[in-house]
């Protein structure tokens, strides 16, 4: 990617002339700027120093506990019988140390229990633990109302009322709870088929298959298209399910730098010219796996470049649209539509229903031949089919998004537009404040980098005290030095809610000194709003 350096900021921007793009590129609409600001070296030194302190404290603790009996800590211990039999410990080495001394103290900001639906206003069950190094919590019985900036509820379909929920209730009454059988045996409903047809139509593909879980859609189906002599080139920040699926196949795996199309091209060139290692035979096929929106970075993959590369290097594209389906593009058809590219160029489109649709499960859409191959080879042939209630929630929410539901003809379009507006507003406000924000200007996932893990818990609690639920993420989900807060925007957020959140961010950033870019904030979004960019599409 051509990197154009602004003062101390690094923006990766797509340079279309580099790849001799075809006809599509000329009509190519949206401009995308992805921010990845660089910090002063002294800050980096400070973060390392913080880590050193945390580790030092940890080593001292462990050293002291060495002399104390095992039950003096709050940590659970193995059964006596196992210890007597000399069975090795399952938590050892660095992983165990990290778990006990870095993760446990900040454990309180994960697994926050809710009651009620995870809609935009939610209720949190309070819980407590007696000691900061105790792993288990107890519910206090109190609840607290808060604004939800944590759930992946992009289009606001996570609610406990409305047409989707009613339809899903009727379906549960009619078809029961679980199917108790796989799709290939006796677990198929007409609803499953209708849903698959609708998904295929929505994405502009020939056929689609649906699965009961989003994770297994990757992990259980990637092995189906890989074989001996195949090469899989995967983005280095791809989701764990993709990594697992790649591990399960017999193919060779290589990675390229996150969202770096130059690096990808270098890897592709090398792979095709050199062929397989050892045998030197040419590769049978090359598959490149990317995600639409990266859930931890907020970056959007460069689909037009990828397609241009594909025309030259003849690889296949597996696009994981877990977060982008429904949330991106003028009609919610995901990141391919957002870029104005042709869906037929993407060989396999995968996505999940647990985010924008407020349900559960995943899909794979592709040509008829590929989908029927995957149906034969999928691991979910051994597992239960998608439950009817969930299938109906997806079906009805998808119909609303597509504008097929006569009762709510413009509701889907309204939600998508709302989300795009919210995203632009929220992001540009954050940029102004000199905060370190990663990702593309149009991505509804907004990671705010705070760098060290020691503040995760206290910041999360501060937000919660004020009545906002946010997600805090640390290692191993992010690089060790880039712990972050994550705001997931939703179409159901009103401008007032966003302002309330922004006020809170102001206070918090002042309290904890998060405005690392105060003197040189990220430049304002230079491109027109999505509406203007998409006006060709919206009729």
């Amino acid at each position, binding site marked *: 990617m051509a990197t154009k350096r602004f003062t101390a900021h690094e923006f990766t921007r797509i340079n279309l002339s580099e790849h001799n793009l075809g006809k599509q590129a000329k009509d190519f609409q949206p401009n995308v700027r992805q921010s990845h600001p660089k910090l002063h070296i002294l800050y980096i030194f400070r973060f390392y120093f913080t880590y050193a302190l945390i580790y030092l404290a940890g080593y001292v603790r462990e050293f002291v506990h060495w002399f104390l009996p095992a039950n003096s800590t709050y940590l659970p211990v*193995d059964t006596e019988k196992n210890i007597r039999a000399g069975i090795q410990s399952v938590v050892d080495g660095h992983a165990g140390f990290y778990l006990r001394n870095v993760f446990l103290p900040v454990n309180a900001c994960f697994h926050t229990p809710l009651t009620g639906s995870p809609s935009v206003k939610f209720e949190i069950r309070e819980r407590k633990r007696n000691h900061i190094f105790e792993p288990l919590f107890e519910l206090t019985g109190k609840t607290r109302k808060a604004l939800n900036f944590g759930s992946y509820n992009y289009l606001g379909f996570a609610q406990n009322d409305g047409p989707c929920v009613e339809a899903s209730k009727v379906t549960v009454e009619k078809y029961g709870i679980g199917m108790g059988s796989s799709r290939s045996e006796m677990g198929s409903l007409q609803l499953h088929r209708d849903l698959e047809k609708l998904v295929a139509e929505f994405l502009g593909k020939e056929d689609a298959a649906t699965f009961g879980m989003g994770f297994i859609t990757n992990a259980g189906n990637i092995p189906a298209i890989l074989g001996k002599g195949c090469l899989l080139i995967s983005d280095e920040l791809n*989701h764990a399910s993709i990594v697992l699926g790649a591990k399960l196949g017999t193919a060779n795996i290589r990675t390229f730098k996150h969202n770096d199309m130059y690096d990808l091209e270098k890897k592709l060139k090398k792979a095709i010219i050199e062929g397989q290692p050892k045998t030197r035979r040419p590769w049978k096929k090359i598959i490149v796996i990317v995600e639409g929106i990266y859930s931890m970075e907020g970056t959007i993959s460069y689909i037009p470049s990828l397609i241009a590369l594909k025309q030259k290097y003849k690889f296949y594209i597996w696009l994981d649209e877990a977060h982008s389906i429904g949330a991106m593009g003028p009609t919610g058809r995901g990141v391919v539509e957002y870029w104005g590219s042709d869906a037929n160029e993407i060989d396999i489109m995968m996505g999940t229903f*647990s985010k924008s649709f407020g349900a559960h499960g995943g899909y794979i859409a592709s040509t008829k031949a590929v989908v029927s191959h995957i149906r034969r080879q999928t691991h979910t042939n051994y597992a239960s089919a998608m439950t009817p209630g969930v299938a109906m929630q997806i079906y009805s929410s998808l119909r609303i998004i597509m504008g097929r539901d006569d009762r709510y003809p413009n509701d889907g379009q309204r939600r998508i537009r709302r989300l795009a507006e919210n995203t632009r507003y929220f992001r540009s406000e954050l940029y102004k404040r000199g905060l370190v924000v990663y990702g593309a200007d149009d991505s509804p996932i907004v990671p705010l980098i705070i760098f060290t893990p020691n503040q995760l818990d206290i910041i999360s609690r501060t937000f919660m005290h004020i009545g906002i639920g946010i997600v805090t993420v640390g290692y191993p989900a992010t690089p060790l030095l880039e712990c972050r807060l994550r705001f997931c925007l939703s179409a159901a957020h009103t401008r007032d809610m966003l302002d309330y959140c922004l006020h809170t961010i102001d206070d918090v950033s002042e309290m904890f000194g998060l405005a690392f870019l105060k003197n040189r904030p990220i430049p304002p979004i230079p491109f027109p709003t999505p509406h203007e960019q998409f006006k060709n599409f919206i009729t």
Partner: protein
Amino acid sequence: MAFNPFIYVAGLVMEAPLYHLVLEGLLVIWIFQLLFSKSYYIRKRPGLSAKEEEELIAEWTPEPLVPPCDDPPPENNNIVDKIATRTISINGEERLNLATTSFHGMNGDKSCIETALSAIDKYGVGACGPRAFYGTIDIHLEFEKRIAAHMGAEIAILYSYGFSTVSSSINCYCKRMDIVFCDEGANLAIKKGIEASRSKVRYFKHNDTDDLNTLLEEHARWERKNSRQAKVTKKFLVAEGLYNYYGDICPLKELIAFKYKYGARLIIDESYSFGVLGETGRGVAEYFGADNSDIDVVTVSMDHALGSNGGFAYGTAYMIEIQRLGGLGYCFSAALPPYLTASALKALELIDENPKLISRLKENSNYLYDQLWSLDGIKLSNHRDSPVFHLRLMAPTTWGQDFALLQRAAERINARGVAVTMTTYVRSEELILPEPSLRIVVNSCLTREDITRVSGVVSEVVTEMLDAK
């Protein structure tokens, strides 16, 4: 006078004969020539030019994404159109249900459905996030607490899909250096979990404790030789309570004895035995009268007895808490929809309240087993108490032929009003492919007359088919 090297060298030169000086002069000139002459390396080859590279890239043609399938198996046209409990309605035809694995019909139970509906009213459908990031709903915590109390374990962990439960659990503990002893007949989820962990795996013959003993003994010998490495090599024993592929029960007592003798951790997948084996349906440990705490991790899929979706694992807090950070299917997947959790909880209550369900299931299984075991040309690989029946040919030929024959039999049985299925095996994924089998799943909703009818139909069709062959 101090030693002067110049005078010393000058003296040597003066003293040396002329030919010596000439020779050395020539040698010096040669050395200089060698040093400054243009060198080249024979080994270094010129790289590909940009044009050649382009040509290579243009020449390369990949295989199609999926191999062409000339003879695709027919699409599954069995469309279910009603709740399947005692009977299953396929394409409008009512048949006795011996196909789905909901052993107690909990997927269609009235009170379960009512609980599910009120849960949808309260929670909506999806959980909209992984457990760590606001996907934890209070019903999840309640379920974990209740199931742990029910099983007498310290804690439990709830997964959002049955298949992922066991594979993620195994993957969470076993690392690259470790060794796993696994039953050959274990299901695909277990094998995929082990494969993903990249640990060393030794498969022992199905339910063969002698073979397992030899393997463990072999490993113990290796340990004695490499005691330093052995300290960091964890050992795991993996088995299924009731085998999905065979319907027989694992020798739990022996496995527990091996566990303590050789110092291995025991992981049991009880997806099919939970709610089935034992007086109160607490699984294979209760069935053998063993102590549940001797098993380190038990994983259960809720697709079957609980008639819902998802899965859970339970054990000591020491073992299970690790999964909250290390179980991939737990960490990186959206949480189970709350209404499915609520209905599973209700189903658990119902099973707990009515031990009759378990005993009726056992009676049904035993009765059908007694009817079918003497059938000519067919062997039953399942245990008498197992509700999952696997009918395999006594005289197997090739896999494909046997499969076709049994599939025709299944179709005929279906045509006569009894829904049964073939066991689906993804052949390319199975390391050790079991023989093809016709699967009959008994549930507790069936009456004795139903079972008599089933056994009549099955034995007639099988005899017809085998005679025709």
